């Protein structure tokens, strides 16, 4: 298993000095609204390629 970020950049051994908790008293999140209006057909699918062994 090879992953990046776990050994090459040991975060806990060298934390950034400016690292701080994010203040979220207002301003991090958003709300998305639902689709409305008449349904639209889905986009054309990619060509179906059928191969036989």
């Amino acid at each position, binding site marked *: *298993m*090879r*992953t*990046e*970020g*776990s050994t*090459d*950049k*040991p*975060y*806990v051994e*060298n*934390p*950034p000095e*400016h*690292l*701080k*908790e*994010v203040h*979220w*008293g*207002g*301003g*991090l*999140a*958003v*709300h*998305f*609204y*639902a*689709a*409305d*209006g008449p*349904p*639209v*057909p*889905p*986009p054309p*699918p*990619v060509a*179906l*390629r*059928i*191969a036989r*062994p």
Partner: protein
Amino acid sequence: MSYLDLTKGVPGLGKATVSFWFRIPATTREAARADYINRRFAPAGLNDDLVFAGSIPLLSWGPSVLQAQFTSGVMSNSAFVGPSYIGLQMDDVVAEAMLSVRFQSTNPAGLNDGSLSTGNSFQIGQQQPGGFSYSTEGMPAPDIFVAADTWHHLITSFDVSTGTHGSLWLAFDDHNYNGPQLYPSGEVARSYVGDGGGGSDPNAIDCVFNLFSGWFGYGFDPVDNPFGTPVPRDYAVHNLPVEMAELQIFTGRTLDTSIVDNRRAFIDADGKPVDPAAAALLMGKRPEVLLHGSGNWIAGRNTGSLGLRLPDTVIAAGQFTPTGKIDAYSPGPSLHGDQGTPGLRKRTAA
């Protein structure tokens, strides 16, 4: 409707580490359930629309594909099914939505060898709903359920960039899942450990049709555009109300989410967001996509490397196109903090 569209996609999304916060209203969950019932239980025909049937997309990318089902050698039905996505899936039974990820492919999934279907049916193309539903061991109640009206955090890292063999890491609400807990409900791919496919890597996944039908060599074939949150423009009709925050996408890098210190670059021990600078330091680069702060979300302003060349050069091709009304939302993301009153949105200035 409202969504952020990045038509050109996020190049290299076949191998990536993705972190974001989300929540779904209970009304969204029930809308998805109704959608599932309406479309999944309708009589099967030809070219049915099963795109995102019962799904609650949060991040979506790539194309819809056609699934065809044959019985005794004759196409009995076919349906458009959804693109790759990270989100939730509802059905007619469960009380809460199930965490779900699908890696869609433009390759036909192959020919069932009988082990995954009944009678003389087989399938070509992709199953929906399906892909990966992250789940705990032991059917029939294996799924990771996601409570409505409360914030959740997800880190998922994957490499499905090539071939038939991939890797997958997942941390949901600061808890790592792997091995048998990554048991897919669909038919696109399977974990080695979860279904006894062999091997001991708890993060290995494989194309199931390659696993079971060796003479079909189809593998992962990720297509990374268009990209959108919750959906790109092509799938706007399938959008449902959700709340989102703090999206970070690092392409070309995977992350072992079983290591607590890795998770601490995204979520602190109190279950709150961490300054994105921590993740950039951990991953060794800026994220390609960074939507940080309500104002940037609302404007579709990607301050990741795909959208902003430091210090201040905006890259138009890497910016999202916002459509519809996107509101700032509070309370902000946290696992254990104020979750607000269900159904009552408190709007805040961006």
